[in-house]
């Protein structure tokens, strides 16, 4: 029911809280991308989040890669730059990745590679992880990748080929260069007071205190490696929630729950009534059988007396009658 409403690719219509998560990751690497000879965005999608996150000026040379041609075209339009290459291909395919590596040999250095929310969409992510590691080792590329924390999503994502959580991320880290750094993306909830009517655009500052003694569960886990990871900037952002949409979704869920509980209650009552009726019928049936047997015995006795009187023989007691219940 809800799975049908999943929209995995980020578009302008994506919920603001989802969009801001994507934008923030690109904002974190904006400086790294801009100060690189080439920025490569693997699994670029529609480019909406990248355009907003990277901002202006754009990196001098951009390489976009995605398996969806339409999304790739949209990203190329949004990130229109003097030197932009859009490449359509499957990031799980070793042959494609070899060709991509050959293509990148001609790209100006230094390289910055992002692969946000890509790994979980691949049937086989091992070739991509090896490709990223090779780029770091052979081309001194700085790489940033992210995976979602599926374990904390209440619903199964039908688009994810593999499931990710803290443990799976740990498994992945064993296959990354040992100097990699880990970044957790945390969800922050907040509130704002805004005088009405609001006549102009307002920029609100975000103040949030994160206590190291508290285990803040990440929504996404990022890993970065390469010589220029220090250019990745810490980021935080907040966005007003679409309370109307959120209320619709939450109320639908609540309504479904209430409906299911009431249905269960009604079925329970019906079941109890049926059980009671069944017991009454069973008792009535037992009484009817008893009455039948009594009558049968009376008839048998009557028959016996009649035949004895007709024969003039000695009276014998009737035989025991077996009845089945």
């Amino acid at each position: 029911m809800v799975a049908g409403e999943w929209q995995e690719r980020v578009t302008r219509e994506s919920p603001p809280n989802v969009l801001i998560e994507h934008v923030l990751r690109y904002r974190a690497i904006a400086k790294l991308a801009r100060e690189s000879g080439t920025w490569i965005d693997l699994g670029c999608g529609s480019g909406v989040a990248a355009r907003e996150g990277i901002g202006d000026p754009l990196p001098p040379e951009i390489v976009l890669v995605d398996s969806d041609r339409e999304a790739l075209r949209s990203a190329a339009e949004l990130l229109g730059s003097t030197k932009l290459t859009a490449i359509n291909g499957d990031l799980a395919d070793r042959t494609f990745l070899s060709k991509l590596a050959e293509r990148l040999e001609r790209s100006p250095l230094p390289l910055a590679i992002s692969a946000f929310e890509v790994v979980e969409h691949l049937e086989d992510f091992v070739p991509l992880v090896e490709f990223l590691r090779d780029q770091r080792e052979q081309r001194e590329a700085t790489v940033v990748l992210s995976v979602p924390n599926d374990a904390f999503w209440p619903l199964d994502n039908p688009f994810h080929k593999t499931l990710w959580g803290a443990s799976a991320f740990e498994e992945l880290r064993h296959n990354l260069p040992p100097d990699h750094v880990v970044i957790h993306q945390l969800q922050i909830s907040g509130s704002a007071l805004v005088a009405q009517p609001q006549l102009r655009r307002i920029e609100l500052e975000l103040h949030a205190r994160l206590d190291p003694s508290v285990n803040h569960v990440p929504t996404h886990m990022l890993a970065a490696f390469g010589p220029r990871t220090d250019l990745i900037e810490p980021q935080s952002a907040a966005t007003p929630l679409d309370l109307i949409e959120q209320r619709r979704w939450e109320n639908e869920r609540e309504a479904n729950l209430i409906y299911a509980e009431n249905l269960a209650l009604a079925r329970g009552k019906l079941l109890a009534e049926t059980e009671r009726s069944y017991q009454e019928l069973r008792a009535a049936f037992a009484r009817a059988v008893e009455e039948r047997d009594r009558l049968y015995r009376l008839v048998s006795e009557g028959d016996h007396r009649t035949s004895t009187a007709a024969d003039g023989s000695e009276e014998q007691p009737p035989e025991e009658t077996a009845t089945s219940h």
Partner: protein
Amino acid sequence: MRVAFVVNDLQLSGGITVVVEHCRRLARLSGWEVSLVLARERDDRDWLGYPDLEPVRVIDRNQAAAERFDIAVATWWETAYALFQLEADHYAYFVQSLEDRFYLSDQAGRKAAALTLDLPVAFITEATWIRDLLRALRPDAPCFLVRNGIDKSVFTAPQLQQAMTGHLRVLVEGSADVWFKGVPEAVAAVEGMTERHELTVVTNEPADVAPLLGPHSRAVGPLSQAELAATYRSHDVLVKLSRVEGVYSPPLEAFHCGATVVTTPVTGHDEYIIHGYNGLVCEWDDPRGVARALDLLARNRRYLTYLRYNALRTAAAWPSWEQASLFMQAALRSIARLPATNSSLTGKRLIEDIRMYAAIDAEHLLERAAFHRRAMRYEQPISELRQTPIGELAARLAHKQSVRKAAKRVLQAARRFGTKK
């Protein structure tokens, strides 16, 4: 990539199943040749558990010794002894548990198993706690974490099936004759419940468990994986009171089928069990506590549903075998990228030494056990004598200084007399 996994045999067991699941998937990869190398002599019984291993090669140790592999992987401490008989560029050790703990302190296997962790190999392990321990023990050795997958086509729960009233359906699983599985303890704890319940014990030896069971209990087994999954689905809670576990798979399988767990805080439980969220973690040696936890679940069906639902959600985030084998593939590829070491000779010598000293140790332990038995033969009559009036009198006199001095003089005189004679 030519990879050899060394196994003792191919008899049905949890550890071998894990190796076989990985091998089957790795062997389907383009450019991979995966072999299962049998460290022991082949036996017809070996093939019962895994009839269809294609495209995995199954070869014996001698055949494997004539070949060369990119990576050779030991899968159990005893197989480490055969590992260095294979020619390979890299050697790895797939550690599924700290196997020395399977043996009691006076068993020779304990030291021999522990020593294999000193071998010059790269480690692959299934559990975070083992990874942390290996890192502490062997900071020099590469270590990769590859969690076990779950067969999501077998261990499934289309929907939570739960009786809102009636008996709590309790399941105990494990080999009753393996001391660290705690099966008799679990049965005793369940039988201590005051609320209505039905107990099913899944074990390889149902007849051994039958005498322990009450009127609402039954023992079944051995079961196939599909039968085991169906059994999990028709129960509310699994009770496991293990003392030693590696990755602790049974509760995870139960979670996939919608059952919660009452468990001891055994190693591996904290990989996915959260007390009060998807299961209940009880103290060690606390059968009454286990029984009370089960009584609580029997009385409070809303809480039971909460735990079972969260167990299902936990299961949903656990990797399938397909995903697990991707990490195994990644780990093996990472090991293959490491500089080739000349660990074959070192390993061979080290393993020969370990084998020799383990054999000596085993002899010493056997001798010690024999001495212990002989000593106990004398201990018994002495203990009986001490309980007689004469024995008690002798014990009292032995405490007196004058008596001890006199006895000493008598003994010295006796010795002198013996010498003169």
